[in-house]
């Protein structure tokens, strides 16, 4: 399964949520599907996208917050799986795309290819709703359920280690940051 195809399938639903992606391929793929002011691409700070999702979901209880994460980033901040499970914001979806690779820096293999089971770690960290979704249909269904659920949802999807042909995005980091924050403040005040 290609991550790009999954994102395309769920884009209509993602479009209405507060979305944080990690850097690299997933940011570019979402951006190319159509940038929205409620999309934030965390272009560094690897591991902290899920922590950002926690801060956002606790501060915007009426919004649905989705973090599009990856195995490399999650492995850098495994403690976050435990913190998320501990505080389990009911409006947070933590979706981990696992390509067993640090794709954006040249495809070096990560520990998930050698047996580390991120869904298992999330579950044992205390997350109640952990779903494996390795086909487009399963991913669509898991994301639809997670989007309706009053509870922290973790989805883990194995995807191929294939990214976009170019990593170019026509939006600067700070442009994205200020547009996103302004949009969220509108949501918070509305």
């Amino acid at each position: 399964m290609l991550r790009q195809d999954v994102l395309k399938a769920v884009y209509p639903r993602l479009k209405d949520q507060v979305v944080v992606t990690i850097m690299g391929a997933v940011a570019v793929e979402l951006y190319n599907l159509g940038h929205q002011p409620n999309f934030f691409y965390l272009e560094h700070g690897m591991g902290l996208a899920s922590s950002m999702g926690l801060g956002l979901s606790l501060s915007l209880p009426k919004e649905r917050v989705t973090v599009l994460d990856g195995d490399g980033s999650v492995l850098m901040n495994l403690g976050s799986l435990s913190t998320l499970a501990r505080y389990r914001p009911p409006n947070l979806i933590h979706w981990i795309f696992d390509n067993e690779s640090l794709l954006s820096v040249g495809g070096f293999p990560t520990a998930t290819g050698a047996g580390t089971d991120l869904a298992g770690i999330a579950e044992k960290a205390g997350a109640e709703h952990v779903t494996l979704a390795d086909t487009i249909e399963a991913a669509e269904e898991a994301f639809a359920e997670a989007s309706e659920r009053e509870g922290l949802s973790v989805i883990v999807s194995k995807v191929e280690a294939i990214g976009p042909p170019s990593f170019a995005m026509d939006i600067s980091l700070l442009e994205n940051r200020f547009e996103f924050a302004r949009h969220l403040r509108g949501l918070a005040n509305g």
Partner: protein
Amino acid sequence: MPVSVKNSEALFLAIKSAGITLLSALPETWLVHVMQMAEDDPDMTLIRLNKEEEGVGISTGAHFAGRKSAMLMQNHGLLTSINGIVSVAQLYRVPLLMVISYRGEMGERDPWQTEGGRVTEPLLRSLGIDYRKLSEPSTVAYDVRQAQTLAESSLRPVALLLTRDLMWEE
């Protein structure tokens, strides 16, 4: 325990009166009372972290959503948060307020705190992070307000170092 309850309360009230409603923290001896006050206060959300760097992400998310927050940690927590501070808070211009217990300075008895104490201020200076050392309980509310004002106008991290004179009663 000779951690000052009175000055911990002054600090907690200062944080509250600055409009902060979310604190992320990792326990340390000097901070136990402040954390307990945060835990007991229905108007304060306390997130207990596994590692301090998570707090940078949490505060960034909170700030983007328009909520005031702060990180409460030991100076060794600052050391472990450096990448997040540089490549999220500084890169994305986040007014991150860091309230840091300053272990390992003059009067420190625990040998294991001493190296962290030596590097704390040089590190803050090299990162270009403005900071103030807090030792006088009567000015704590003023100091927290000043730090937050600068963080928000500069859109940069600012640090408050809680000294032994403030936190500890011999």
